Structures are given as C-alpha cells and as structure tokens.
C-alpha cells in the first residue's frame, strides 16, 4: 500500500472524499484485508482520542485568575489615550515642519544675499547704496545717500506655510 492509498483511507474515515471516490475506496477495503485492517486501526484510534479527551481545570481561584486578565484589559484601555495624545503631537509637528523649512530657507537666502551685498558695498565708494540687516531686530535697511532714499523691510514671524510677508517702509 503506498502513501497516497493510506491517505485516501484516512480521508474516507474523515468523510473528506467526494462521494464517488469514497465508494471506490470502500469497495477496495472490502477486497483488501490490509486496507481493511488499517482502516479499523485508524477508526479505533480516532474514537479513543475524541471520546476520552482530558479536561484539566485551572489550578487558580476565580479571583486570582481574573485579576491578571483585568490588569491586562486596564493596560489595553490606557494605550488608546496615550496614542491619541501622541497623534495630536504628530499632527502639530506635521503642520509646523513645512513652516520651519520655509523659514530656514529664507534665512539662508537672506544670509547669502547679505554677504554678497556686503562684499559689493565694500568694493564700491561711500556714496553707493548700502543694505544692512539690523542685528537686534528682523529689519533690513536699504539706503541710497545719493538719491536720499531709505527702505526698511520688517520680517513678519512665520505661522503658516505661506511665504513671509514683508512690510517695506520708505523714508526720505
């Protein structure tokens, strides 16, 4: 008897064969004593196992057993609260991140421009227009002595993803 035949016998016992195949295997067991003996062994074993399952009981009191489950549930209930707190933080961070990137970009551009203008002004004569960033505020000054014009830019603090507005002031 090969493996396939053995497994077919078992499938017959477990009612896992299509009707036609089941009839064929059953007929085979009636002709073949070895097949019939194996089928009997499998049947006896199955009956013994399924009828005589042991039913162990928990060696702990109801209260003690429940107490650990209760603690587990309480821990579980605490997790969503922490998760929602964390999600608020992440949402805020998501909003602030692009604004911060824009602000940093502007600062770098400003510094590069300032450095370039500073170099240019050093090379020109004293009557040439000058641009100065004031150290103690967010203001930048453009001064043209020959023309008698002074322009002042005030940087508005960043609070959204839009580019910062600049408020030029003119003094003659």
């Amino acid at each position, binding site marked *: 008897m090969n493996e396939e035949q053995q497994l077919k016998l078992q499938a017959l016992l477990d009612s*896992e064969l299509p009707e036609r195949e089941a009839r064929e295997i059953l007929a085979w067991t009636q002709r073949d004593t070895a097949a019939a003996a194996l089928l009997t062994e499998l049947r006896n*074993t*199955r009956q013994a196992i399924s009828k005589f399952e042991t039913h162990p009981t928990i060696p702990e009191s109801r209260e003690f*057993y429940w107490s650990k489950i209760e603690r587990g*549930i309480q821990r579980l209930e605490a997790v969503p609260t922490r998760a929602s707190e964390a999600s608020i933080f992440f949402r805020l961070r998501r909003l602030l991140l692009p604004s911060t990137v824009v602000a940093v970009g502007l600062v770098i551009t400003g510094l590069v421009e300032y450095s370039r203008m500073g170099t240019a002004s050093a090379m020109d004569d004293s009557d040439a227009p000058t641009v100065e960033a004031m150290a103690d505020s967010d203001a930048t000054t453009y001064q043209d002595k020959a023309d008698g014009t002074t322009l002042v830019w005030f940087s508005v603090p960043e609070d959204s993803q839009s580019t910062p507005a600049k408020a030029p002031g003119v003094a003659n």
Partner: protein
Amino acid sequence: MSGKDFTNATDFALVKLARRGNLKAFEELVARHRDKIYARAVSMVRNEDDAIDLSQEAWVKGWQRLKQFQGESSFATWMTRIVINLCLDQLRRQKRHRVESIQEMDDESGGAERQMPVVTVNPTERLERSELRNVIDVALGKLSAEHRTVLVLHEFEEMEYKEIAKTVGCSIGTVMSRLFYARRKMAALLAELKKEK
C-alpha cells in the same frame, strides 16, 4: 442588569454588555468558559504555566476584539479559536529557538510510521474511562507539537482538513500526512501503554 443577574444571563447578552464596557459581564464570561479555554491551551502546549498565561492573554484579546464577534459560532468556540492561534504563535516561537534533530526530521516525514504493523487491538477495550483518559493524555504528550496540533484540531475541535490547513498555515496534503502519522503513532503508543497497565 445587576451583578446578581449575570449568572442567569445568556452568553450573548453578556457579550452585548461587555461590548459596552461592562467588565463585570466579561468576568462572568471568563468564569463560565475559563476551564475550556485553559484545557485547549494545555492540550496544545503541554505546559500548565504556559497554558495559564496563554489563556489569560486570550481573554484580554477577546475583550479587545469583542466587536468582531458576530455570533456565527458560540462565544466559547470563538474564544477557543483565539487561544488556538496564540498557542500556535507560541509553538512557532519555540520551534524557531529549537535545534531540530534528525529524529524530529524523521518524525515530520512520518516515513517509519507508514511502515509500522497495524495495531489490531482496540485501545479502548478493557480499560477504565479514567485510565484511558490518562493513557491518551500521556500518548499525546509524546507527539511532536506539529502532529499533536493537527490531531487536537481535528479530533477535539472537529475542524476539516481545509480549516486546519488555514489555521496552521500549511497545505492540505501536509495536514493529511501529519494526521496520518499522528494517528498511527498514537495507535502504537496506546497499545504499548495498555500493555504496561
């Protein structure tokens, strides 16, 4: 519904209350079915301490997933499926940590058992029920976790081949092969243990 009434409530009524956050109702469900859930864990992992931990973990998961319980099966059956899955996870973890011996590889293929002589004696004959229970329990303990699992799911949980394959995560052919091996080995072990008695 007060705490006193819980003993008369149906499982389904208790589930409905527990879904709304009533922990006392859930405690009643645990009290009713805890031994069955524990017994299934013992039959699979064969270790009482692990079985207690796994059954308690199953109850916590049950609470977490109460909304998924649709009442298609009984609450006890639904909980049993949860503990079975936890036991399978535990057995997989154990297997990863275990160095498989040549004996285990041979066990997996079941080659030797296919050639064993057929046991003609009925193992249930001339044995007291309690004796037979004990003998079966000892024999089950001698099977590898893979073979015991398939046997437990088929004989105790009455799962079909297809359902076992889905639960365990293997092919139907593997389920049939493991079940055949497990039964043949059990037949030999039962005959041997019966002789000793």
